[in-house]
């Protein structure tokens, strides 16, 4: 019988939630790395027992860990992230230049074909890669030295590279996103990059055709149609049907199109999920009602999904990397909140229940579907 493993990164440690394919009862393991910020942990699609972890602390900096036994044990791996050459400057919030400084790893994306190869998105925004299982990390500096780099500015969370999408049939194609620079694509395995922000419109950017400066919160795609991209931007839900060359707005009837998380159903490439959040500064659900919105039409038309979710007095947030799906026949949807709940739906979003309620604030959720 198949099984599901949910990998949860929180402000104070990592948790692993396990269930059989029925997804009715869950076992909670953790905290792993208690007291450390776990921005992200993710398993290799090639070897699900191989799990990579970004472990950090304001005191002791960036650590990296790796499990080779499905999260039962972990061992430290290389944690040196050195920018290539003289890093140069990006802009600060006030527009003045600031030298690139490594702060943390936001996102880990294991290779689709090699368990020893992993991509890391870091703050200040850059892309690193290991090809030796995490022993050493090397920058793909063509991104940071993209001609626009000196104009990149941080979002409220910092100048972070938070999204990495690897193309399943074209190994050279990688799509990434940076707050608040925008989306970028490489077609040569990460050597060279181009900005792919045409069609994005952002308040505060006078030029609607600005090459960079867009606060992209997250991008998702379906493995069967990897060039169809769905984006949750600071404001607006967007889609692209050509690998990011052009974006169109698909917010439709959403009650607010601000949010962080977005994901795609495992078996229905036009079914997508977002969690609308009130903004600009509140960053909690509208009217205290936590609702996921689902579109079965690739955007434009959205329906609220509320069964089992808090109907009142709910003032949590769902962060950009805190939603994921499993690949069981009845696709499971999962998301974590800053209130420490992890919700799961075993029926594509029709109904929800909390797997666990009182974790530290959830930073990331990933799901492994196991045989």
């Amino acid at each position, binding site marked *: 019988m198949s099984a599901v493993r949910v990998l949860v990164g929180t402000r104070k440690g990592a948790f692993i939630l396990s269930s059989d394919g029925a997804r009715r009862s869950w076992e909670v393991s953790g905290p792993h790395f208690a*007291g450390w910020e776990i921005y992200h942990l993710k398993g290799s699609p090639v070897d699900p027992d191989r799990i990579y972890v970004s472990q950090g*602390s*304001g*005191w*002791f*900096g*960036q*650590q990296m860990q790796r499990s080779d036994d499905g999260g039962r044990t972990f061992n*430290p791996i290389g944690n*040196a992230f050195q920018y290539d050459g003289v890093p140069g400057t990006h802009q600060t919030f006030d527009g003045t230049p600031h030298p690139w400084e490594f702060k943390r790893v936001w996102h880990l994306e294991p290779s689709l074909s090699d368990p020893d190869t992993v991509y890391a998105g870091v703050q200040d925004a850059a892309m690193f890669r290991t090809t030796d299982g995490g022993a050493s990390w090397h920058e793909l500096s063509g991104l940071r030295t993209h001609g626009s780099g000196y104009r990149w500015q941080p979002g409220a969370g910092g100048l972070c590279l938070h999204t990495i999408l690897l193309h399943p049939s074209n190994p050279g194609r990688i799509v990434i996103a940076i707050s608040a620079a925008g989306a970028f694509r490489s077609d040569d395995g990460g050597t060279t990059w181009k900005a792919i922000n045409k069609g994005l419109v952002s308040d505060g950017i006078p030029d609607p055709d600005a090459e960079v400066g867009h606060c992209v919160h997250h991008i998702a795609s379906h493995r069967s149609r990897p060039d169809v991209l769905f984006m949750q931007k600071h404001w607006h839900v967007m889609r692209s049907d050509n690998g990011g060359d052009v974006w169109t707005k698909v917010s439709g009837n959403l009650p607010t199109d601000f949010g962080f998380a977005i994901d795609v159903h495992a078996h229905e490439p036009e079914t997508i999920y977002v969690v609308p959040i009130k903004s600009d500064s509140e960053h909690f659900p509208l009217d205290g009602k936590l609702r996921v919105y689902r579109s079965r039409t690739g955007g434009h038309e959205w329906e609220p999904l509320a069964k089992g979710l808090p109907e009142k007095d709910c003032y949590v947030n769902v962060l950009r990397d805190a939603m994921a799906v499993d690949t069981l026949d009845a696709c499971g949807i999962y998301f974590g909140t800053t209130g420490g709940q992890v919700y799961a739906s075993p029926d594509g979003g029709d109904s929800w229940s909390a797997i666990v309620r009182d974790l530290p604030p959830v930073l990331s959720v990933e799901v492994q579907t196991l045989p």
Partner: protein
Amino acid sequence: MAEISVVLPQHLQTLARVPSREVSIAVEGVVTVRAILDGIEARFPQLRGTIRDHGTNKRRPFVRFFACEEDWSHASPDDPLPAAVAEGREAFLVVGAMAGG
């Protein structure tokens, strides 16, 4: 070769996987902050980058060094430490600053 007693903060004890916060570090030559940190990182490679930055070797902002009730955080890392530390009678303390939540 001197055996220096070093007290690590709890999180680094966990990371180093040692049963006690107090560890013994072998130092050759003059006993300085730099020599002790070199010894810590040689014995526990997983602590590289946690006390001082990779590359620059600059002390991380929320880490402090104490010896014989004196703050050595801002001293030159190449200044000789007190004889009591060099002779193993007093511990060299690596402290995580009390800050944050």
